[in-house]
Structure formats: C-alpha cells, structure tokens
C-alpha cells in the first residue's frame, strides 16, 4: 500500500501542503518559461553595447550596470512575467487538460494558490534579487553631470521596493487572466492595452523630471521619465503610498484570480473590498 501524506488545509482560503508543493513545481515552470529567453537575448544585446560604451569611456560602469539591471527587471522581466505566469497558470486549466485534474483532491482553488506561491518563489524572488542589486549599485553610481534625468544615485529603498512588487503584480495579473479569460488572444490584447495605457500616463513626466498627477496612477514605477531617463527622487511619503498603491493593485489581481475558483468567497469579497478602499486611499495620498 502506498503512503499518502495528506495536506493540512487552512479552510478559509484552501491552502494546503499540496498547494505548497505545487508552488515549487509552478515556480520552476515559470522560471523556465521560454518568454524569458527573449528578454535575456535582448538584455545580452544591450549589455554588449553598454560594455562597448564603458570601454570607450562614454559612461561609468556602475551607471551602466544599474541601468541594465533596472531595464532587465522593470521593463523586460516584469512584462514577460505576465506571460510566463499566465501560460503556467492556464496550462492546467485548458479545456481537455483539466478534466482528469478536476477529479483530484487538490481543487481549482488550491491549484490557483499553487500558481501564486510559484510566482512568489520564482519570478518575484528574481525581482527581489534585482531590487537588492539595484540597492547595492545605486550608491556606487553617480549622477551624470548636466543630465537631471539620470539620477541613479538618488534612488531610495522605497523606490527600489517597487521593483519586485511590479513583478508580483504582473504575475498575479497573468494568473487572473488565466482564470477569467483563458481564450487565445486575450493575454496579448491586455498586455498591449496595459502597455499603451501606461505609456500615455508616462507622458505626464516632463522634461525636467517633474512627475505630474496622472503618472502616479500608472501601475508601474513613476521614476522613469518619458525619455527613458530616471526622474529625481520623489518625496518619501509619495514613494511609500505609491508602493502601497502597487501592492493594492497586485492583491486585487490575486483576489480576482481566486474569485474565479469554486469555494467560499465571503472572505475574498471582504479582502477585495478592504483592498479597494486602501488602494483608493493610497492612490489619492500618493499625489502628495
């Protein structure tokens, strides 16, 4: 007779040790997703150009290193995480694939929790490493003389903390989309809408690096100006509220994903309501 170790469930949300184990598998699947290879290739190309610039004395090595990590995590890894998390979360829910899995004791709710845990253990961890690297590199780098939009050294911890939150939010959005709209074409459409919507909000960062109100509502870091430079450090209070705002949006995406699964929904609706209020409050407070 085989040994079956039964998971201990937390009845409110459905977490179990099986969901935890599933999280490890999903983390591996997300990290190995081919979407990241595209990002890595692009980053390798940029890195090559950057090294050439350093060798030619056009820029400082630390600035370049910071810029590569920043670009890699915020502008490549986070958007690609929408794809990897979505594909991994959708894979076991596709029509035809899910039928035998639906007859397993680890239900759709726990599988979704497994995907979220996978996101935390995989891509978000990469975001945390990126944040740590940026925090180490920022003090070593120096602002480019005469370029007010390249304030690498001026970045603070609260701003850097937004980096893994970006990855978290992107992944949770991907998982929520996998649950609500697993049809082909929905994911690229949402990514495009998000990309162009965010771009238009960024137009509200002017040439002097002043961040105007609409930009704060972008589900992204606000310290990247339209011309790809880095805006001056924002007031600490605003940074903190923007971090809360981003976390709130991320949490809402996670709750949306869980609401699509069978099981008790009361706790989720309460969480969603509280999060909407907190996110709205943070959205208003971040304007300063």
């Amino acid at each position, binding site marked *: 007779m085989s040994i*079956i170790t039964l998971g201990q469930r937390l009845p409110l949300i459905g977490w179990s*040790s099986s969901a935890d184990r*599933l999280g490890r*598998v999903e983390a591996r699947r997300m990290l190995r997703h081919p979407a990241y290879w595209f990002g890595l290739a692009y980053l390798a190309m940029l890195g090559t150009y950057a090294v050439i610039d350093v060798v030619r004395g056009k820029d400082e090595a630390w600035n370049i290193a910071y810029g590569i990590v920043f670009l890699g995590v915020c502008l490549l890894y986070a958007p690609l995480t929408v794809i990897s998390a979505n594909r991994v979360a959708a894979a076991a829910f596709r029509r035809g694939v899910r*039928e035998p899995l*639906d007859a397993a004791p*680890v239900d759709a709710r726990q599988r979704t929790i497994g995907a979220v845990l996978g996101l935390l253990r995989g891509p978000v961890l990469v975001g945390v490493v990126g944040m740590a690297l940026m925090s180490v590199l920022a003090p070593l780098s120096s602002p480019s003389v005469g370029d007010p939009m390249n304030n690498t050294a001026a970045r603070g911890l609260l701003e850097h903390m937004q980096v893994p939150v970006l990855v978290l939010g992107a992944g949770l959005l991907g998982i929520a989309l996998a649950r609500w709209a697993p049809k082909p074409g929905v994911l690229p459409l949402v990514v495009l809408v998000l990309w162009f919507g965010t771009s238009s909000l960024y137009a509200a960062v002017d040439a002097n690096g002043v961040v105007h109100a609409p930009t704060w509502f972008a589900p992204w870091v606000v310290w990247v100006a339209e011309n790809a430079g880095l805006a001056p450090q924002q007031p600490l209070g605003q940074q903190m509220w923007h971090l809360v705002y981003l976390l709130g949006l991320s949490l809402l995406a996670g709750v949306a994903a869980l609401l699509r699964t069978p099981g008790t929904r009361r706790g989720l609706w309460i969480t969603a309501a509280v999060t909407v209020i907190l996110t709205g409050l943070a959205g208003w407070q971040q304007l300063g």
Partner: protein
Amino acid sequence: MDIRLTEVAKTYGRDRALEPVSLEAGQGILGLLGPNGAGKTTLLRIIATVIAPTAGQVELLGRDIASPAGRTEIRRRLGYVPQECGFPTGFTPFEYVDYVAILKEWVDRRPRHDEVRRVLAVMGLTEVAGRRIRRLSGGMRRRLVIAQALLGDPRLLVLDEPTVGLDPEQRLRFRDAVSTLADGRCVVVSTHQTEDVAALCPRVVVLHEGAIRYDGSPSGLAARAEGRVWTAADRQPGAVLAWRSEGGGVRQIGVPPAGAELVRPTLEDGYLLLVGGAGNRQEVPA
C-alpha cells in the same frame, strides 16, 4: 456499495443528457455500453465528481458528492480516465504524472517519485518517461492518461473509453491490468467495444438516450437476442441489422423469417438489438 446513484439527472440548458437514473455498484468491474450521445460520458463525469448532477443524489464510497468535504474524500480514492485528455505544454510523461500525483496529495518527493515510476511501468511507459509528451504516439498518450488514474491504488476507477487508440496488444495488456486491479475495488468502464465488456465485466449496463435500458450480466444481454439472430445467403426483410460474417453468409438481427437458420447470439447481438432502432427496441422480449 461503492456507487449509489438515486434518480440522478443532468441537463445542459434545454438538452436533457441524462434521464433520472438509479444505479448501485460494489466491488468489481461494471461495463457501461451505449451508442454515441447515450449519456455515458455525462454519467461517468458525475461519478468522477467533475460535474454535478442537475437532480438526484450521488453517494460514492459512502460519501455524498454534494458536500465539499465528502467530494475531497472521494477524490482521494478516485482514479479517472476521461474520454478526451490533453496535456500541459512541455511536459514529459514523468513530469505529467508527477504533477497529477501532487494534485493527489502526494507531498513527499521520494514516495511520490517511486509511485510515478510504478504506474508508468504498469502502463509500459518507463522507456519514454523522459520524452516530451507531444512526441508520443496516440496509444502512448492514452496509456499515460490511464497511468495517472492508477496513482495511489484508487478504490474507485472511472474509465471512459480507455481503450480508444490502443493497438490490439495494448488492449490486451489493458484488460490484464484492469482485471488485476478489480480486486478489492470498484471499476466502471465505458466503452464501445463489446469484446472488452465481454472479457472484463461480470455486469453490464446499457445506456441509451440518457436512460438505462439494460442492467445485468453480459450473458443475459446476449440471451435477449435468443431467437433473433440468424444467418442467410442474403439480407432478409425482417433484419434490423445485417452484415457479412466469416462463413460467407449474412448474419442478421431482427425478426427471423419462418425456418431461418438461427445462431447462438453474442453480447454484441444483444446490445445491437437493444439499441439498433427505436421501433425494434419494443420487439425485444423482456
């Protein structure tokens, strides 16, 4: 009883897929026969706890599927092979069965991997365990679906058209595996293959147009065609179905003419007579 269905019905919108059906089954193999659209898959999906019935009560392994706790408990002791099954992209057979094993609450890595290797070996997939699933043949994929259902020695096995796509040797291997598995557990097999039912099942249920038309032994079903099967040189007017048989004559089912050369009916004859046509179904003696 491992399976107890009481007046279970299922409708999809206005379409009634399953009329109120009552069925009980204990240990052993129960064969489910029926033409396409008879409601077999709907019934099996209800027994596999994948869909809920529109009406009626379903008790499996002593638990009611209506309660979430009961459903989870049933699923811990359930193996299910759906009629059609896709696979997540990029998986190998080992990874896929391992993934299902996690969903079946095999948390500890070592015993889980041992179990995955065991079921892959039972279905003869050890050699291809590390190959991408998309590179496997249709028969191998079918065996893979069966392999995942065998994880953890399930007490209740629900197999929907398990032998579709298997070659004759694999079908025989499957029969061997299922007849071995039948000891101490309840196995429900749905199939179009009357030979599989005749070889495996001491009890057969015929489902037609969403209702149970026959519930009994395979020999009893064959006996229903007693006096209704004959051979002749050509098709005759009373035949509902007729086909050329091995001896060169035409084997016919229906109302034989006087003096017809009657032959011993098979399970297939009984089944065909039962579902062969609405007008003729009434002519079958009870």
